[in-house]
């Protein structure tokens, strides 16, 4: 059963809350997005923005209690995952939707050989015999670039470096040819030259298999080169959503704008960095209006009182802001001025 509009995944009005000593924390609060087949969607946000909880919700891995998915729909290939029984979710998780986590040190079992951990998945989901599963595991380890894979398969995780372990995680995730790969900060724990290797690997494998990817990260540099669409999350809400190139070129939300300006650009000479003042809000005690209002340089009275609307500023481009259109138009004007200036000034040297 394929969805007629080409969407592999549709998340609608997802709300995931946690009970804490401090009261109810709305970690994800009304998140909606779609993912087309074969596309890569990036989700960016700072810690506590709800990006990881969104994805744990998609694969129903929210610890319950203290967490619960309060409402919403997660339609994967026409079926609402939230309405499925746990045993049916298990048939999807790992087989049709696979995950890679941030920390390859803790997501592998230190007492099991690499081969057994990779074999487990196809034995469980595809009914492979031991022989078949081992051969398949070796093939997968070769695919992700483990040198001498047949011999290395018999090693334990501690005998692998961080980058190699992340390759093993990717081999496991892709073992059953999933339709959706969720990569949650897959390179955050890795060195920059190893990060380049892993990102290159994910790109190549995606091209070869056509898998859709959700890439969760706090690193705007990583999503810039990897994704088709972007979602920016803040305080459990989607603050902005757009095609990647549009979002970088013409941000329509003050938070996105601030975030983009606060990252040093290694290719350009810069003065003082722009800084977003203040701290992210306490999710257990959110103010009534826009959760970003206290840190926003263009906040007005209305921002502190009323929750902002999710405004469409351009085709496929939405922003959660009372002044979304103005912010977007400012970005257009700035982009135009920049191009004109670049056109007039002669290139250096």
């Amino acid at each position, binding site marked *: 059963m394929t969805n007629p509009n080409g969407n592999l995944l549709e998340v609608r009005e997802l709300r995931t809350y946690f009970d804490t000593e401090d009261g109810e924390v709305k970690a994800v609060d009304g998140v909606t997005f779609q993912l087309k087949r074969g596309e890569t969607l990036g989700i960016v946000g*700072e810690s506590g923005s709800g990006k990881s909880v969104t994805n744990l919700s998609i694969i129903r891995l929210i610890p319950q209690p203290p967490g619960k998915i309060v409402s919403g729909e997660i339609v994967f290939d026409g079926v609402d995952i939230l309405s499925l029984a746990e045993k049916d979710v298990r048939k999807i998780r790992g087989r049709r939707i696979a995950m890679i986590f941030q920390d390859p040190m803790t997501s592998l079992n230190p007492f099991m050989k690499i081969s057994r951990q990779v074999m487990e998945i196809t034995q469980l989901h595809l009914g492979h015999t031991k022989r078949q599963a081992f051969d398949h595991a070796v093939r997968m380890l070769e695919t992700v670039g483990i040198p001498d894979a047949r011999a290395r398969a018999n090693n334990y995780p501690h005998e692998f470096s961080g980058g*190699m372990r992340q390759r093993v995680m990717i081999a496991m995730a892709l073992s059953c040819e999933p339709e959706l790969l969720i990569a949650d900060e897959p390179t955050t724990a890795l*060195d920059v030259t190893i990060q*380049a*290797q892993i990102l290159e690997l994910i790109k190549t494998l995606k091209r070869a298999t056509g898998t859709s990817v959700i890439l969760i990260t706090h690193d705007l540099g990583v999503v810039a080169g990897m994704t088709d669409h972007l979602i920016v999350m803040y305080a459990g809400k989607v603050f902005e959503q757009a095609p*990647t190139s549009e979002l970088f070129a013409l941000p329509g939300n003050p938070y996105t704008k601030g975030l983009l300006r606060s990252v040093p650009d290694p290719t350009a000479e810069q003065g*003082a*960095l722009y800084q977003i003042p203040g701290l992210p809000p306490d999710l257990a005690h959110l103010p009534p209006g826009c959760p970003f209002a206290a840190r926003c340089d263009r906040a007005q009275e209305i921002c502190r009182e009323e929750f902002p609307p999710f405004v469409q500023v351009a085709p496929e481009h939405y922003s959660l802001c009372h002044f979304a259109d103005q912010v977007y138009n400012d970005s257009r004007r700035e982009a135009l001025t920049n191009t004109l200036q670049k056109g007039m000034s002669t290139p250096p040297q």
Partner: protein
Amino acid sequence: MGLVERDEHSEMSTQESNLNTLQTPPPIADGRGEPLIAIRDLEVYFDMGRGKKGIVKAVDGVTFDIYPGETLGLVGESGCGKTTLGRAILRLIEPTAGQVLYHGKDLAHLSAREMRKQRRHLQIIFQDPYASLNPRMTVGQIVGEPLDTFRIARGREADERVQQLLETVGLSKRFIKRYPHEFSGGQRQRIGIARALAVDPDFIVADEPISALDVSIQAQIMNLLEKLQREKNLTYLFISHDLRAIRHVSDRVAVMYLGKLVEIADAKTIYADPLMPYTKALISAVPVPDPKVEASRQRIVLEGDVPSPINPPRGCRFHTRCPYVIQACKEVVPPLVEIKPGHFAACIRISPEQPDIEKVAPGDAPGLAAAKSASSGL
């Protein structure tokens, strides 16, 4: 792991070594005046502990200068020795050999007592703002402790000083009686900075000061450090694996690989025109937050992992991953050579006459002769 015994050289008396410092060769880069801190052939070796063979050469013969008022960025991947180097300069880890010259004194060979006096001028900010503050002390006690230790102020005067320091780093003085757990990561880092500033130092090692923080908070801390530098004429050694942050804060950048310094130049130059193949790969691996740039750029993706520092590769330590490797690279340790004015790189395949490795003929090593004479000179 234990520290390797010091060599005979270090058994010189303090006075003797001080005399020695006065005769040290001039700074490696001229035209910048006197360095604030001059590091000469610094080595930090660790043995692997009982029953285990092998020595980790965490820092293996590093020489460079830090000039007053500058920020020197020190980059490298995990295990390259950058943190060990930063700490060895301050003697938080004992150097195995070499010198750290500061105002005519060799810090590496001072007595514990003498070194303690110097700590007033040399401070450090740590990476993890959660682990580097005592959870049982109030902010006032944490920031005030150095004032007491160095007998700078006490009583009401000390309290006032602490309040000023908190305001300097952007914290409210109302926080003085609170405990570290009541603060966010960024605020804790500010507390750590206030503590470092308490003694009015002139040199600060900032060891991954923003790595544990969120993007929007990183910008705040970088700006704060820059502001403090301007106001107090501070000199920083800024250690980070984050090449974008390093580019932003640094005047000059030094790159380390497996215990060796492989390239050093001013920040703009090293990013625009890296000379040594490892630096080239490192710079090209940095994701740029601009989809247009990302779509068009050629990335050098290195093969393999960083080798273990226990038995690092012979010759050039990068030769196992280097796309330009030739036989001589596996045999000769490349010295840090001034390839262009103020731009030093360690690679035998380039030379001042031919700085561009792409243009060097296959198999050619124009820097080989210099490397051989450097090693025979030792």
